[in-house]
């Protein structure tokens, strides 16, 4: 019987669409409001980072890494410079490691705030969005006073940090840390505790543990599916083994857990920053590295826990000043693979929400 079947509607969402987080485009096949098939189309923000890297020296590529996941740019710097340091065998000073931890975790908080905000905004929760962005501004201010930029921070160098935080940084950080419980309470009150938001997110877009592992999902999305895996614990890079923190895991596998797990991660990040501020030693922030960076022939793969998943850099060096091949393993690009699978059968509104909970940043997806 063909008469009781509605005609399929092929809807093109993006790249210019209010909820597509940048320049994402997907072709959605609809039956009424129900999604039958999603075909994501990428590449609208493709800048050829990997090709660019082959014509830049190792130091010159650091500002480019800012533009990958631009919501957590210190993390991208961190992954990249650590990969190069691993390749060269550089030991960096203690203080620089602590500063990297502080900025990395601040970036994690900022990124998660944006995720919460944009998830709320994709469901028209305007106030939740503006409150989260208001609080993120304070982190941006801290970046600004240290590195001179609010978004593309470019704060790390091969061998250390670019700048010592100024005097006024520490009180600002302290007051931010003191205010965070109140902030989280506010996000919870206005968004996560709201029955409408719960109804929109709970039991929607189920990504089971097996599916997540099979699809190479990483980051909070994986942990919301009940897998206890965090690179910071599994393969502690930098000095993460010195800190006492938990890896939040939730077992709901749904959109709600994928979003609220970021609140838990903010709490853990605050714990780490507090310990780092307590223990930070004095001393130099830059190791002795040669002016012209020329790693030996070899290859290295280094991964860090980006706020959105695992960010990996695979560098093949041929002994010159420029990398022979630089491969970026973008977390959200791979996480995005779950969207067509998970969103099938849900309403078009849920697709928007599921996409928001993935926290895809198109700078990273499209490289």
């Amino acid at each position, binding site marked *: 019987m063909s008469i009781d079947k509605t005609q399929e509607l092929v809807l093109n969402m993006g790249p210019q669409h*209010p909820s597509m987080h940048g320049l994402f485009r997907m072709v959605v096949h*609809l039956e009424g409001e129900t999604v039958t098939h999603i075909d994501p189309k990428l590449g609208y923000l493709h800048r050829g980072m990997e090709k660019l890297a082959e014509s830049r020296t190792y130091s010159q590529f650091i500002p480019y890494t800012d533009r990958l996941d631009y919501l957590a740019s210190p993390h991208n710097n961190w992954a990249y410079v650590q990969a190069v340091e691993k390749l060269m065998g550089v030991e960096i000073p203690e203080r620089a490691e602590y500063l990297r931890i502080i900025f990395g975790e601040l970036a994690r908080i900022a990124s998660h705030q944006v995720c919460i905000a944009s998830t709320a905004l994709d469901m028209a929760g*305007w*106030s939740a969005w503006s409150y989260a962005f208001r609080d993120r501004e304070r982190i941006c201010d801290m970046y600004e006073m240290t590195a001179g930029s609010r978004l593309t921070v470019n704060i790390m160098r091969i061998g250390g940090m670019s700048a010592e935080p100024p005097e006024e940084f520490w009180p600002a950080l302290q007051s931010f840390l003191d205010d965070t419980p109140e902030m989280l309470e506010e996000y919870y009150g206005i968004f996560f505790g709201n029955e409408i938001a719960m109804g929109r997110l709970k039991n929607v877009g189920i990504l089971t543990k097996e599916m997540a592992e099979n699809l190479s999902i990483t980051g909070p999305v994986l942990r919301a599916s009940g897998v206890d895996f965090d690179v910071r614990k599994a393969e502690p890079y930098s000095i993460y083994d010195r800190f006492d923190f938990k890896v939040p895991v939730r077992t709901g596998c749904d959109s709600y857990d994928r979003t609220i797990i970021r609140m838990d991660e903010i709490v853990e990040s605050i714990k780490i920053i507090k310990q780092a501020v307590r223990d930070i030693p004095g001393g130099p922030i830059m190791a002795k590295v040669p002016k012209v960076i020329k790693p030996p022939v070899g290859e290295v793969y280094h991964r860090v826990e980006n706020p959105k998943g695992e960010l990996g850099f695979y560098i093949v060096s041929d002994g010159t000043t420029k990398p022979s091949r630089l491969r970026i393993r973008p977390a959200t690009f791979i996480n995005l693979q779950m969207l067509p699978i998970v969103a099938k059968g849900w309403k078009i509104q849920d697709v928007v929400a599921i996409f928001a909970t993935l926290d895809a940043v198109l700078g990273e997806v499209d490289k």
Partner: protein
Amino acid sequence: METLKYLMETLNNLFLIIAEFIRGLFADPHSVWANLTMNVINFIIVVIIVVLAALILILLERKVAGWTSQRPGPNRLGPRGWFQTIADALKLMGKEDVTPAGADKFIFKIAPMIIFCLPMMTLAVIPYGRGMAPIDIDLGIFYFVAISSISTLCFLMAGWGSNNKYSLLGGMRAVAQMISYEIPLLFSLLGVVMITQSFNLGVIVEAQDTIPFIVLQPIAFVIFMIAGLAELNRAPFDLVEADQEVVAGPFTEYTGLRWGLFFLGEYGNMTAMSALAATVFLGGWQGPGFLPGYVWFFMKVGVMIFIMMWVRWTFPRIRIDHLMHLAWKVLLPLSIVNILLTGLGIYIYRFVMGG
């Protein structure tokens, strides 16, 4: 004291006195010509109310949006930005009127005009003060609901005529949503009608001189608020124009003044719905005597509108299946139970009072 009371009385009946004066200009104050003139004047007043309401409400909406997110809102044009909407309106007038290729031109063009007419038709039966209903008809509530349900058709026309998939989705959502919510909306009003034994809005207001019906019918008021929000396509029920999903729904392809007409219509409808809520549940122009009745009325309308805006900027949008569940599985049974309880209450009241 006496003069004060007299002054109050004059103020209260100011518009009635003016109307009497105009009627007095005719040889026979109740001739066809006098009635016609009065109708034209009433019509002009209602148009002014709709346009003024839209002008003020668009600004207020943006101000409330600003305040909730700790911003001042528009603050450049005029004192504290009060002329912002006028500038917006001028800008809209200067815009090119684009009709998309492949659009159903007649339907596309007529939809915003119809939606702009509806609030004028509905606002015409609202009693703004004692004896101040522009048109006093006995089936006021019935008329109001009947007219306001036409807006469903406008959304569908706009959605279909635009030749745009987003618009079509929005239009279809509008139909599903607004038809569903009309039923609980009407049922919630029936409780009040049962108490007053009248569909006439003037009579309903008169009946509230001791106690507003929100006290007698709290469930009905809540149902009315929810259904009214859904009927107006206001957040959290703004699935029709959900910009995160269907861009702007039926309005996606509209530009310039046509788009502006949709806005006028939306805010006019909002005023009308608030006016109905104020009339039926909050006691209309009834209020302590130190202010004229119409002032009380507009204050109540203002409070209702403010609550709607406050809700809009706080809540996320509801999902379409939850929306339908809410209408058919929660609000409809609840409103029927409310009618039953009202009936029982009336029966007991009569039994006790009448013996």
